[in-house]
């Protein structure tokens, strides 16, 4: 029996769900949002870089009240072996602009704030409520949900599935498959607190300037993975993620990997003396374009991580989540105002619009990257980082060996490790997948 009806039910109050609920509520729709956590954000984990452009489309004046940490002026990429790193640092005064482009945020706090905007816009937000099942009308149309809170069903014209990477409901309702171990990464992360001045001195920052480090190499022990270090105002967020299939294959314990990363001589001084206040773990979709499931059907759409909309190459996810949530919501509002039913035929508008956005265009561009990285993880995450480190050491160490001989040695170490065909093949494969 349907007790109560809404124009739309949004499952989940993460980035995608909040974007969708906010957009629909602003258009005057009767929206119910259900979140299993104590509050929006209490189950969510992110690095976290926030991309201003996508948030601005939802909350134009967000800079005046959102809990932002630091605006990013510097990006560091590190290729690491066990004792060294080779780095590429990009820092620009251009990023000290009036409306900065990227910020670090603390997800639990950020989500709580965005959720307050959703409520202000008029949506009903019910936390501490796990949706246990989607309700179907017997003809394949989703007409509502069941929760663990109350008996009976809650009905809606359309259900927006913003349930995150695990996507339990969609899998149970056979709308899409469970993510496979080689298409999702497990990331573990810690929050390290230090006095503000210490962080600014160690990272060479003034005021609210921020920096992020992204690192790959032997830290992932030959698995497909990456480490990250993000500077917040009074804490440093650091972690490491690798494919679940690789954890399964290697039997490396995630927390040991994290500990090794923290103890790396390039990293340890940055967090020396810090107080750890949280340890968290979360999955990240890594399959890219080829893993995107069906995005809509009769009475439902799926947005954000649940739809595997994550650009692993650029470490972008929250912006794809916000954008897909907003686009789906705008499509729904349009159908509602046209007075047409929320069926697959009409909800196709969501996918059509999404296909034209950066979300699908970027994922399409890198469609071959995930496979390339996963099938060559030993080379890309172990062999090459070691070779690069050796080459750099050979280059900078002054020991009386003639330079020409040094170059020959470096070249030989690459060819010995990967052979000419291997090297050229790797270069070719990367160029093609990047194109």
């Amino acid at each position, binding site marked *: 029996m349907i007790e109560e009806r809404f124009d739309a039910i949004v499952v989940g109050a993460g980035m995608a769900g909040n974007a969708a609920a906010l957009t629909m509520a602003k258009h005057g729709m009767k929206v119910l949002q259900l979140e299993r956590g104590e509050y929006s954000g209490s189950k*969510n*984990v992110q690095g976290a870089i926030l991309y201003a452009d996508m948030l601005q489309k939802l909350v134009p004046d967000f800079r005046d009240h959102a809990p932002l940490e630091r605006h990013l002026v510097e990006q560091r990429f590190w290729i690491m072996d066990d004792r060294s790193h080779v780095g590429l640092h990009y820092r620009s005064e251009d990023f000290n602009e009036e409306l900065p482009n990227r910020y670090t945020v603390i997800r639990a706090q950020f989500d709580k704030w965005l959720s307050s905007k959703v409520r202000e816009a008029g949506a009903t937000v019910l*936390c501490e409520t796990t949706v*246990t099942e989607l309700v179907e009308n017997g003809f394949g149309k989703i007409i509502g949900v069941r929760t663990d809170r109350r008996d009976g069903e809650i009905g809606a014209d359309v259900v927006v599935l913003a349930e995150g990477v695990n996507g*339990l409901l969609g899998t149970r309702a056979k709308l899409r498959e*469970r993510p496979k171990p080689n298409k999702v990464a497990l990331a573990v992360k810690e929050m390290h607190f230090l006095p503000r001045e210490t962080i600014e001195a160690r990272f060479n920052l003034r005021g609210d300037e921020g920096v992020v480090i992204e690192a790959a190499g032997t830290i992932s022990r030959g698995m497909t993975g990456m480490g990250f270090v993000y500077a917040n105002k009074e804490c440093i967020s650091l972690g490491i993620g690798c494919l679940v299939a690789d954890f399964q294959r290697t039997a490396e314990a995630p927390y*040991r990997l994290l500990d090794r990363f923290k103890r790396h001589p390039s990293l340890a001084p940055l967090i020396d003396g810090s107080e*750890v206040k*949280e340890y968290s773990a979360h999955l990240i979709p890594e399959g890219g374009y080829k893993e995107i499931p069906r995005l809509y059907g009769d009475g439902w759409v799926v947005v954000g991580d649940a739809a595997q909309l994550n650009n692993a190459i650029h470490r972008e996810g929250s912006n794809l989540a916000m954008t897909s949530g907003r686009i789906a919501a705008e499509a729904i509002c349009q159908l509602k105002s046209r007075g047409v039913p929320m069926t697959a035929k009409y909800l196709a508008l969501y996918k059509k619009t999404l296909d034209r956005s950066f979300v699908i265009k970027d994922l399409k561009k890198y469609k071959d990257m995930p496979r390339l990285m996963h099938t060559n993880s030993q080379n890309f995450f172990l062999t090459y980082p070691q070779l690069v480190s050796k080459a750099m050491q050979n280059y900078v160490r002054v020991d009386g060996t003639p330079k020409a001989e040094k170059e020959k040695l470096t070249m030989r170490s690459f060819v010995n490790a990967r052979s000419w065909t291997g090297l050229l093949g790797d270069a070719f494969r990367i160029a093609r997948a990047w194109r």
Partner: protein
Amino acid sequence: MNAESSVRVEEKLFYNRYLVDVGHPHIKVRAHMKPSPQLLALLKACPARCYELNDKGQVEVTVDGCMECGTCRIIGEPSGDIEWSYPRGGYGVLFKFG
């Protein structure tokens, strides 16, 4: 697994806040005599070390420190080795920072 690493992850979990739903574990391991390769993988892959071997050599789960990441579901659900749900609303891990 040596003693050193087991101490470490438990210490980590002390930083976190949990509201444990006593008597309603959200993950169950199917009864077995000999653990499957998937179940054995969970001993290492779970970031909270929720899975352990009992003295009969079977894999058991204690969900108190679970961070609800879903890794064990991805590995162990397809073979039917485990049953995985979210905790009831409001229960489980409560991230302050995330």
